[in-house]
């Protein structure tokens, strides 16, 4: 395939394969790189190694039966695809979700967001040469896994959200456990910032690398932390105000280019680290407010037969940005079409355009800073 893409055989340029199995590609993902020494002329991503045809499977499952498959859209942050599918079905069938279930959704999603960003931050540090942060972040993520295991019985692919609500209420004493963990992780994040985020070597490595302007980010459809790092203050949780996010107080961190230009790799790292702190803030409020709503009121009123007709498009702010689910029903038990729009997919599209002129080592930093997860690209 590489000879199809690069036809001119120049002596000094070489074609290099990065992946499919490469430690910094975060899954099975391949780049065909044409380079002149250390400098990239062009890097073409070759995706599809993890394509599991989730959209096709959706046409053969019932609406509730599709939920476990949505876990696999993005297995690092599975809660969001769960929520996205549930919200699309609820929008299609006009189902109201009880407040307590919505709080449980927010709590589970924000826990998952911290876990996902922990992987992103740790893996990014590891990709550019610092091994220790990854180990420490895995420890914190492990605590989140323990908490979600107590909540819903699963550590990675949760299948926790249901159409109309969630599957279980919190176990007794769970809220205090989460609070204790938050008390521990908050000083840890501050310590992490002192050690890594504002570390001089780290800043020199990442500042001004692969700068993406706000205009480019919007044009290429970057979403979530990648978009905010380019200076666009836009968060679906604020703008759409879905679920109970309007009742919660939090900020939207954006890249300000403190150490380089707005939209460089360091900004993308910084935005994720700040978002973890905001998630901690949201979790504390949500855990306090959830008690205002009666226990075990966790599933809304569903129609007797789930055979909707029509179409709906729902969006959630996942750990990788605006995730969309488009569902079309034709009065059958199975959806006629289920489509997922994911943040990693569009982030991959920009790499071919941004790569010319980058150093090979900076491509690794660019991929890591996008926090792409291969299954989310391929679905």
């Amino acid at each position, binding site marked *: *395939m590489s000879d199809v893409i690069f036809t001119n055989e120049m002596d000094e340029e070489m074609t290099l394969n990065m992946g499919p199995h490469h430690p910094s590609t975060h899954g099975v993902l391949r780049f065909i790189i044409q380079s002149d020494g250390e400098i990239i002329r062009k890097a073409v991503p070759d*995706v599809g190694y993890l394509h599991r045809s989730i*959209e096709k499977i959706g046409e053969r499952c019932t609406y509730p039966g599709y939920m476990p498959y949505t876990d696999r859209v993005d297995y690092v942050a599975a809660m969001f695809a769960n929520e996205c599918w549930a919200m699309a079905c609820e929008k299609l069938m006009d189902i109201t979700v009880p407040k307590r279930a919505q709080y449980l959704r927010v709590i589970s999603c924000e826990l998952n967001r911290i876990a996902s960003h922990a992987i992103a931050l740790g893996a990014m540090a590891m990709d550019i040469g610092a091994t220790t942060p990854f180990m420490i972040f895995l420890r914190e993520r492990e605590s989140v896994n323990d908490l979600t295991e107590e909540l819903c019985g699963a550590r990675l692919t949760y299948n926790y959200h249901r159409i109309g609500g969630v599957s279980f209420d919190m176990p007794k004493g769970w809220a205090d456990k989460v609070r204790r963990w938050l008390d521990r992780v908050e000083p840890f994040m501050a310590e992490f910032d002192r050690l890594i985020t504002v570390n001089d070597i780290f800043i020199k490595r990442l500042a001004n690398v692969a700068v993406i302007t706000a205009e480019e980010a*919007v044009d*290429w459809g970057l979403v979530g932390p990648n978009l905010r790092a380019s200076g666009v203050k836009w968060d679906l949780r604020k703008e759409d105000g879905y679920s109970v996010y309007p009742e919660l107080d939090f900020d939207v961190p954006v890249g300000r280019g403190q150490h380089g230009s707005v939209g460089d790799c360091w900004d993308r790292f910084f935005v994720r680290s700040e978002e973890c702190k905001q998630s901690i803030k949201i979790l504390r409020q949500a855990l306090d407010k959830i008690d205002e709503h009666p226990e075990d009121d966790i599933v809304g009123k569903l129609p007797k037969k789930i055979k909707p007709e029509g179409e709906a*498009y729902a969006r959630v702010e996942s750990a990788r940005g605006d995730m969309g689910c488009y569902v079309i029903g034709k009065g059958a038990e199975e959806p006629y079409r289920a489509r997922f729009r994911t943040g990693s997919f569009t982030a991959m599209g920009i790499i071919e355009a941004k790569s010319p002129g980058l150093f090979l080592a900076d491509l690794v930093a660019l991929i890591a800073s996008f926090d792409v997860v291969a299954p989310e690209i391929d679905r």
Partner: protein
Amino acid sequence: MAMTPEAIFKRLQEKFGTETVFDFHADPKKDKDPWFQVAPWEIETVCEHLRSEPDFAFNYLECITGVDYPDDHKIHVVYHVYSYPKKHRVVLKCLLDREDPAMPTLVNVWSTANWQERECFDLLGVLFEGHPDLRRLLMPDDWEGYPLRKDFEEKEDYHGIPTVRPNPIELFKITLPSKEPAKA
């Protein structure tokens, strides 16, 4: 100020005429996001206008979806578009002939259309004319057929790799114990 989909539809119809922009759907029971049709061959001019006109300012193409309707002999290409400055959304649909699905590309309007159109081509076989790099994206390069079409049938094997797992009982010639209770 955010505009409703209906207002956007009316403005577009005034500008481009009823032959280009038509068929507004907003049945609250079925169409949770109101949508309307755009003539496939005019989609690029309409979208260029949506993007550049300051009242619309649609700068973010959220999602391109292809849907196959074999009963109507149509393939629908659905565009979900959003505007960051105005905070409004619109849904456009293009109905293509299923036998020869072709329409102009939107790569020159929104760069993100590049990969999304490639995916749509890969899984549904819609030809986006003028696309700079219309290759298969998710499926292998030599894959035959378009998997998200409703009449797609999986072949028995791909390069000698079976797509169906054989029944292990027949494969290994396992003899199952008889169901009759053993006689004493």
